[in-house]
């Protein structure tokens, strides 16, 4: 059994479990074996002094839901080995929040162009600095701060 750091409840009555980030993969594997077969989404929250990774689980047999959270400083184990759907969700969390997932097969930006500077959902992301995207001949993106170099 993996130790649980603390428990809470959300406003809609779903249990929230905090787990140490070293144990996250093992803990989610246990939960998956217990019947939480759906990984609905992976997301992150920037609390300025630390980041939090949030996993929403669902059991399609009982309809039960569970929220698992882990505090991190920007790196956590990937759960792509448990759910195939985790692949895109982790890429998105890396793209927008800058949380690295160790062991992810293809941790590249998914919504923004490759080469983008910064992670927009961080609270300290500079909103006034515009970045311009363009397309190279081979179909890859380029990003620049110069207005004339992109759109």
């Amino acid at each position: 059994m993996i130790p649980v750091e603390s428990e809470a409840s959300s406003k809609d009555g779903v249990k929230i479990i905090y787990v140490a980030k070293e144990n996250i993969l093992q803990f989610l594997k246990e939960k998956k074996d217990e019947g939480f077969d759906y990984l609905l989404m992976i997301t992150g929250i920037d609390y300025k002094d630390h980041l939090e990774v949030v996993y929403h689980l669902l059991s399609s047999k009982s309809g039960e839901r569970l929220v698992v959270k882990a505090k991190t400083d920007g790196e956590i184990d990937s759960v792509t080995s448990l759910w195939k759907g985790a692949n895109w969700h982790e890429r998105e969390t890396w793209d927008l929040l800058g949380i690295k997932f160790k062991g992810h097969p293809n941790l590249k930006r998914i919504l923004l162009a490759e080469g983008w500077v910064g992670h927009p959902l961080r609270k300290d992301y500079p909103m006034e600095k515009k970045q311009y995207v363009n397309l190279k001949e081979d179909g890859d993106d380029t990003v620049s701060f110069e207005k004339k170099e992109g759109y």
Partner: protein
Amino acid sequence: MIRSHLRKRRGIEMQDKIVEVNFGPQHPSTHGVLRVKVKLDGEVIVDAQPVIGYLHRNAEKLSEMGYYPKAQIYVDRLDYAAALNMELGFVLSAEKLMDIQVPDRALWIRMMMVELNRIASHFIWLGTHGLDMGMLSPFFYCFREREKIFRILDEITGSRLLYNYFAIGGVYSDVTPKSLEMIKTWLSDFDKNLTEIENIFKKSYIYVARTKGTGKLSLDDTISYGVTGPMLRAAGKKWDLRKNKPYLHYDQINFDVPSQQAGDVYARMLVRIEEMHQSARIVAQVLDKLPAGDFYNKKYSKPMLVRIKATGESYIPTESPKGEFGIYLVGDGSAIPYRFRIRSPSFANLSAAPAMLIGYKIADMTATLSSMDPVFGEVDR
């Protein structure tokens, strides 16, 4: 394989070559701005990687910059084919977070409106899916039927596509007797008209031959990829949040959840069409049960200006036309959401695209992609 065998027999010395084909982002059958990098061996797809993000606006960041009600216009523009279903996911989460009570009449009106919008959304899908499969006439029939729904929604909300109609604490305006009359007239021949369109698909030999057994996704893969909605039901699981975790007043209404076993394009078509019949059934029942009373919580005189400080977090899942949709809200004690995460069904559904495409012919690709019903406002957010 066959090609290399033929070449050997004919004595042609040629190396088997994998050809890379770029599909989209500007292509009529991608239903938006999807790009797929496809690798082909002859006509068979050996690798397919969807590239998304061409419609990315970061609605999450924009929503985290204003008061709670202001986020609603961004939510509207997620799945623009079913804007009311998107609004519903938002207002339910926000009301839970702020502990706001909603009058009964508003809940019933909401239920009727999302079902009407679900039918409209499925009509767009059915029409464009027909177009992808080379059938031109169902497109016109579907848009004719969809137009009738838009007239009704226009009468009630004042807009045709992006409504901004639900509000935290109720709805913006009451339904008028005229609009209820319009819905009754529309209901009287809806099933007949839909069956007509349905038969064009079911009785077309070419359509059936092209879609049966195409784009299969097994139930295990469906769950592993987090796929929900009609695609999950077409793969053999009777799972509908309106039945399994009822919100609004769905527990007081009789309707069936359609499901199929095959998990292919044809099964998805059958499931969606049956869902439209069931949605019409729900609308008819709401008309009978619609109670009198307020249509918004009178405590908040102007819903647009609800500025309530909220703490904690909430996520209310709803069944949108594409699957499980909900907004994960985290409040920090101010009147502005601290974290605004959109769980978008199309994003999860599209991530399963490689599993559905690899091994099939390139000609089946448009069928499979359109059967997923991706809307890119919601995939890219």
